[in-house]
């Protein structure tokens, strides 16, 4: 126990502020996509950012692309109560504005199941009733559509 406490790394306040400005709005949007409750999402945002800053060294020098991916997966692992809940890619859920409107129902369902709930290709193939290559293809198509829609 003491070893764990003594090994705890403390973050610089300016790094915390930089990290917050950079990722808090994205993370809140992501959490709200999973939790579907603004008040609970804000509570989870505080808890997740606090523990992430405590557990992981955050600084502007660190590779920014990996940082968001790492943070997203960290958040997903902290929200297992919601992600493990048996709602196989609920496509009727309200998701934050931006991007998803360009997807058709199947693509939205697949994207949300993977992005918000971390469902595997194999799981989705079984649930939806098509083969894995089709799921993989639909996932790629949905990401491509959203990238194009956002001008990339």
């Amino acid at each position: 126990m003491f070893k764990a406490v003594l090994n705890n790394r403390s973050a610089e306040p300016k790094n915390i502020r930089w990290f917050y400005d950079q990722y808090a709005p994205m993370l809140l949007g992501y959490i709200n996509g999973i939790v579907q409750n603004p008040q609970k999402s804000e509570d989870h945002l505080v808890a997740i950012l606090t523990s992430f800053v405590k557990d992981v060294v955050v600084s502007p020098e660190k590779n920014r692309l990996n940082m968001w991916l790492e943070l997203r997966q960290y958040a997903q692992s902290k929200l297992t109560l919601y992600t493990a809940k048996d709602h196989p890619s609920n496509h009727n859920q309200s998701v934050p504005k931006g991007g998803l409107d360009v997807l058709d129902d199947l693509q939205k369902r697949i994207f949300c199941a993977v992005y918000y709930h971390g469902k595997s290709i194999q799981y989705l193939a079984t649930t939806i009733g098509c083969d894995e290559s089709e799921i993989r293809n639909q996932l790629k198509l949905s990401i491509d559509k959203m990238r194009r829609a956002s001008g990339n």
Partner: protein
Amino acid sequence: MEINKIIESGLMETYVMGIATEEEVQKVLSLKKEYPAFKAALEQLEYDMEVLAQNMSIEPPAGTLAKIEQEINEIQRQNQAVQNNFNSEYSYDKNHQENKREKYIEVESESNQMRVNKAWKWVFVAVFVLGKIFLAFAIYFYLENRQIKEQIKELKIELKQKNR
């Protein structure tokens, strides 16, 4: 040509979405090292995923940063307190043991005292009083016995004198 096919296969998307199998992750990492085109495409995809997340972002309410900073400070303060406490306890124990070792010879000893229930006090008083009574009786009967023996002795002497 081959690498373009891999880029279009959806492998990168699976990796970036965090649902790639261990085998797929290893493949992506080795392709990233081997092919600059794959590396560039992967980095572009990672960047675009961040842009997508920015498009879906929600501005946190005012005061959220203060809450986070407060929580982090609280955790750091608690950790500091635990650490200080641990250090002081550890150094006290160490010094105390060293001092003890220097001043005294370590002897394994057992206490001579014993704990007894208070109720036993009255039993001990009763035993003491009875002991005194028995002692008084013993002395009394001893003296009585000695007196009787002397009387018998005198009677015997008297009888002998009468018989003569």
